[in-house]
């Protein structure tokens, strides 16, 4: 009975793994096929792999530009976000800080606000600031809309660090800022990594804000650029596949390397999706 159950369990696990992997594998291998081979032989490993789909998508599909923009937006947004959210989380979790808990609640309240619902005022504000079709509009939106979740996760971690440590730092002559930078922050690397990876994936994959704010080809992000394949090239799936593979490989690599932090981010109750 027990043995039978285990066999059934593994069969279910393998079937579902195939359900997840086969679409990804078909697209991955399809990117190395000619349209002719894809039509005749869609679900197997390419017989003679071709690489010009990648070339085509990379050069004519403007992928290089999209990559540069996405890397710029994610790096700048994350740098600002981490700087602002760590120091704020440090402050709101200090036991001596009178307003701490109130400010914490104020930040965390933002978790339940869907970004879609502030689309019109945000768009109006950006157009007043002359930031529509400007890459900095994305930086502003990401820093402000990722703040709530970041403060929540970081504060959860900061709270677990005994406050005797800041007292010890003060006795050693540290200022409040030095205590934060030199003593407390280095202890919070795991939480910072979790916040980094969750927000990096969100920013990298976001379609909504670029759709709203970006028009010009030269400042598009990867996901926005990718959306042009939708409904086009339907006769030439392999080029679209190559673009999809190039856009997805970085996030998949990041996920596999930092899976632990990603999972702990999920179980911290974090949501973006």
């Amino acid at each position, binding site marked *: 009975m027990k043995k039978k159950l285990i066999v059934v*369990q593994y069969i*279910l*696990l393998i079937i579902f793994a195939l359900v997840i*992997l086969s*679409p990804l594998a078909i*697209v991955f291998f*399809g990117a190395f096929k000619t349209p002719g081979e894809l039509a005749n032989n*869609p679900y197997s490993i390419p017989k003679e792999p071709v690489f010009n789909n990648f070339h085509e998508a990379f050069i004519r599909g403007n992928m290089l530009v999209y990559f540069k923009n996405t890397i710029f937006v994610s790096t700048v947004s994350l740098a600002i976000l981490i700087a*602002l959210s760590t*120091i*704020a989380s440090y*402050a709101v979790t*200090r036991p001596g800080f009178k*307003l*701490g808990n109130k*400010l914490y609640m104020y930040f*965390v309240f933002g*978790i*339940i*606000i*869907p970004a*879609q619902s*502030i*689309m*019109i*005022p945000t768009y*109006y*504000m950006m157009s007043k600031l002359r930031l529509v079709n400007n890459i900095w509009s994305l930086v502003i939106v990401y*820093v*402000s809309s990722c*703040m*709530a979740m970041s*403060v*929540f996760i970081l504060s959860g971690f900061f709270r677990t660090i005994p406050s005797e440590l800041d007292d010890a730092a003060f006795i050693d002559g540290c200022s*409040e*800022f030095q205590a*934060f930078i030199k003593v407390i922050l280095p202890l919070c690397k795991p939480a910072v990594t979790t916040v980094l990876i969750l927000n990096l994936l969100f920013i990298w*994959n976001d*379609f*909504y804000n670029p759709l709203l704010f970006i028009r010009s080809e030269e400042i598009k992000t990867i*996901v926005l650029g*990718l*959306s042009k*394949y*939708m*409904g086009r090239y339907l006769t030439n799936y392999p080029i*679209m596949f190559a*673009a*999809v593979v190039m856009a997805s490989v970085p*996030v*998949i690599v*990041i*996920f*596999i390397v930092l*899976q632990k932090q990603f*999972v702990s981010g*999920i*179980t911290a*109750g974090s*949501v973006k999706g």
Partner: protein
Amino acid sequence: MTKQSDGFQRSKSKRNITLFLFTLPALIVYTVFFVLPILGDIYISLLEWNGGLIDVKFVGLKNYIKMFTEDKAFYAALLHNVMYTAFVVTIQLSMALLFALILFRNIRGHNFFKTVYLLPVVLSSVTLALIWSYMYDPLQGFVNYFLKSIGLGSFQQNWLGDKKIALFSVGLINAWQYIGYSMIIFIAGLLTIPESLYEAAEIDGAGMFSKFANVTFPLLAPATTMNIVLSTTGSFKVFELIYVITPPGGPISDATEVLATLMYKVGFTYGEMGYSAAISIILLIVIMIIGFVQLKLLRSREVKY
């Protein structure tokens, strides 16, 4: 205040000021670009406004009255939201629970399966839309090919072209993407149940199903609630997947219109900012009601730290 405590008080209030200054940059960015827009949205929903500088008219609750009394598109979209959410949540959570129950005991290969199941979570909705538009292609797609090859050819569909099923075809993609995500939360919940309870139930002669019904399921309640909240809010506010797979103006976009896509269309295609804002407030209210449960859960978890 006595003189002796003066110095102490001053240093304490000085520290309070320093700490407040620490929160200030985050506070300003978050308030100006996230909290103020919420208030702005409420105000705009009371206007008749095309987004320009002139022609702004305060109309009170007129947009809401119009929405609830005469707008068929609003009710259609709301109904689609409800059907989509019910469909996605049911499939996503039942599958997630099944695989969590199998995987939480760290059986051989559990890390491999967890990694595979989580993989789609990190892909963007545009990537998923592109992959699945090929998978669902009625002629070349894998789904119809597979159905035919296992003898279920009669179940072949025009998955994204048939108005009756397109919404659910999109919903399947959504569930496919997030089953692993919900599974991780279920696993975390299952690991909090003490082994001794199972042993006690076994001594009492409980079978597998009775153990599940009397031990696992009740003790899994926090994880279940959290999963229901997350998947309900996540699928209720769906925009990207539907917008990309069935683009506005396309042949079947009416059949997949949800509140978020309707709001986008009314605001940016029709230029009715006030009305669009009113729709977004309804979306906001629904999400916030569910979200308060989420915040409560998150806070109650903190106590345990």
